[in-house]
């Protein structure tokens, strides 16, 4: 039952797919469109070999729509920063986006910490997410940009940032960044994943997950718990792994032999463009965030992120697990309701089954909201610290006479 009062009703409306939630959805969708797509018109026209005049008209259309860029170019001088100085590159729309994003994580994170102040796992995890965003997701890239380098996010790896393994980008990077990107993606991420599950990345470091677990917290319960959604997730996420590998492979192949094969060159350009439009701009950006008020916070993470797909496979065979305390579940459903990945946690808990699901990002909220303390996130191989002695079997016959009623 909704609490009395206009403010409470509005709060319910925006977190339960009411009209205000749909309005926010449309607003966010428009924001992402204006942020990502103006750059794509001209590139698209070129990639698909349109005529000169089409390219020119696409370029001017993109330019007209690029209002955030214009805003930043206006803002610099308005604040007294003369452009074309060393800080010039800072005044672009990505700085604006980064500022909004970081504010959303910081303010949302502070609220999350307040909400779960009795749960140290949530406090530590959320603090790390906020720090990573402020340092690696915001300050460092801006400093790099201002100093004439190409911005680099140390907290992101291939295949989430698919271009970090594109050879033409690697060729222009200092060697230590090249090594950082390759070793990070190929070794560090999966090895840590085997020990701690995907959570070390998806709910401690990654900015996408960071936004979901801070700003997105009020909508986490909207994820779809049906088994049909689970089937779809398995199909889409594995398809995205394949697509990410194919795209990267094609771009690398083109880099190596491209000059000899115009057909390869053309298809590499097209697939790179398509991945940029659909994978990055549409799915991770627009769908990933704009869908918060409608479909919950982790639509991109659950159905599409190729990194999640790979980490999920590692997780299935690694040490991470959610341990279920046997026989203590009252099937209330709080865990399933608040799982942002749409995992029907209750289905496992009421069957006394400890489990590892590939999609689980280890946010720990199921364990937090469970009123009977049934669930525990663990990195251990052996779930039960108690040695099972012969004594235990022998004393099976010793049973207490149950003597009292609870309710």
């Amino acid at each position, binding site marked *: 039952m909704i609490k009395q009062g206009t403010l409470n009703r509005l709060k319910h409306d925006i977190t339960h797919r009411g009209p205000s939630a749909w309005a926010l959805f449309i607003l966010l969708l428009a924001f992402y469109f204006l942020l990502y797509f103006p750059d794509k018109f001209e590139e698209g026209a070129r990639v698909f070999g349109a005529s000169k005049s089409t390219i020119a008209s696409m370029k001017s259309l993109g330019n007209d729509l690029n209002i955030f860029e214009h805003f930043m170019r206006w803002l610099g001088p308005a604040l007294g920063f003369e452009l074309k100085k060393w800080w010039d590159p800072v005044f672009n729309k990505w700085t604006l986006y980064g500022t909004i994003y970081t504010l959303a994580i910081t303010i949302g994170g502070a609220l999350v910490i307040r909400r779960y102040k009795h749960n140290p796992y949530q406090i530590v995890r959320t603090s790390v997410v906020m720090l990573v965003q402020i340092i690696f997701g915001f300050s460092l890239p801006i400093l790099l940009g201002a100093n004439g380098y190409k911005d680099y996010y140390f907290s992101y790896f291939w295949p989430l940032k698919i271009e970090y393994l594109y050879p033409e980008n690697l060729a222009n990077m200092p060697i230590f960044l090249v090594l950082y990107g390759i070793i990070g993606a190929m070794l560090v991420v999966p090895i840590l994943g085997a020990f701690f599950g995907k959570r070390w990345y998806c709910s401690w470091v990654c900015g996408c997950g960071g936004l979901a677990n801070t700003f997105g917290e009020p909508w986490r319960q909207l994820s779809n718990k049906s088994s049909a959604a689970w089937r779809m997730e398995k199909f889409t996420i594995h398809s995205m792994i394949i697509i990410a590998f194919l795209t990267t492979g094609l771009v690398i192949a083109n880099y190596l032999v491209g000059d000899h094969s115009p057909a390869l060159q053309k298809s590499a350009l097209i697939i790179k463009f398509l991945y940029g439009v659909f994978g990055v701009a549409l799915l991770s950006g627009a769908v990933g965030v704009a869908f918060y008020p409608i479909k919950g916070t982790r639509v991109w993470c659950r159905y599409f992120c190729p990194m999640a797909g790979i980490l999920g496979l590692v997780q299935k065979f690694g040490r991470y697990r959610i341990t279920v305390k046997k026989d203590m579940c009252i099937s*209330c459903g709080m865990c399933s309701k608040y799982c942002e990945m749409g995992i029907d946690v209750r289905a496992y808990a009421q069957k006394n089954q400890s489990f590892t699901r590939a999609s689980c990002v280890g946010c720990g909220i199921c364990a937090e909201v469970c009123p009977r303390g049934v669930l525990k996130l663990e990195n251990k191989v052996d779930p039960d610290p108690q040695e099972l002695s012969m004594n235990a079997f022998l004393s099976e016959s010793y049973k*207490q006479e149950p003597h009292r009623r609870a309710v």
Partner: protein
Amino acid sequence: MNQEHFIIIGNGVAGIEAAMTIRSRLSVEDAKITVISKESDFFFSRTALMYAYMNTMQREDLEPYERHVYTQQHITLLRDTVTDIDAHNHTITLETSAPLTYTKLLIATGAHPRHVPFEGIEQATDGVVNFVSMQDLDHCERLTPSTSHAVVVGGGLIGIELVECLMYHGVKVTFLVRESSYWPQALSHEEGSRIADLIRSHHVNLLLEEELQQIHTDQQGRVSAITTNKNQKIDTQMLGICVGVTSNTSWLKSATTPPDIQRALCVDKFFQTSLPDVFGAGDCVQIDLGMEQPLIETIWYSAKRHGQIAALNMLGDQVAYAPPTFFNSSKFFDVEYTTAGQVVNTPAHTKSLWRTHPSQPYLTQRIVFDPTQKDQVIGFNMLGSRWNHRILTQWIEQRRPLSYVRKRLHQAQFDVEFGRAKLKAMQEEILNHD
């Protein structure tokens, strides 16, 4: 083809567990399974009613199984009330649909609120609520907007849940508890007093050792005030009565073939009633285990076990019920509680190791042991942190002495990562029980 028909009355956890167990053994060709309930179309978690009331969940979220599961498992759900049983002819009569014939019948009708004839309750046509069924929840929700002050009677688990829900909705609550501390059926006086402090710290007007005496109503018949046995008059628009539940079997007494009923529906250790091919399980039964008192258990875990084992017996296996070492858990506002074994009303020669924290009043552990039996541990009562009751009950079953348990207590902790309760900080004393 000789299809058997299993009919189950009651779609609570006992009934549904039984239906699922039967289906896991018998295919559609062998068995038709029908589950009948008057309360709801689908099985829902009664234990989560409070979360629906507090808007942390919506009604459909309370259902433990996706709705298509019943079609998939070929379990027919029927929304109706069973009014009669004729065991000679193997038929049951329903309120609205045609009579049905069963091969085996399970009565899992649960429990309903205990009726106490408080003075004035007959005149109160509106404003008196219970908190047990879906209809109770609807009733509470209808009354909440027109309530600024509510009184809740009964110091048990359902009472405190209702109090918490009303507080959430900004209703001022007076909580009447007959005993001198909260919930003495499970908590020691000291533990109950701490929880009483906790309840008061949430701005609930908790009145201990005070009982409801009389209910006053306004012209429309709505509750307007109550008087306590200490002659205190309290204005209220809603009166929640949570003084326990009793077996839902009164309708069986006038059946064509009534089964044996005492305090509840009598079953033997195979969940068989006195009628042939009729079984009983869950909150509605009392089980004769050959002990002095028949066993009545009214908690979720027991109802679930009853349903599973009753189903095996309906299938023809002879599986006797052996209740495991008692355990339970709960949550008082934000304080979690785990218990195992015997912790209250233990023999006078037993003692407790009482562990308290210097600065966290709601973090306590009490370990009950028997000095006459080599300090064997017989029970645990843990407040304010999470414990693996499996390990606690194992220690009890292994008859471990206090020294063994005390050294290994950390092995049974179940707190979240980084959040383990600091056991080293606890202060200890030994309490006598006489």
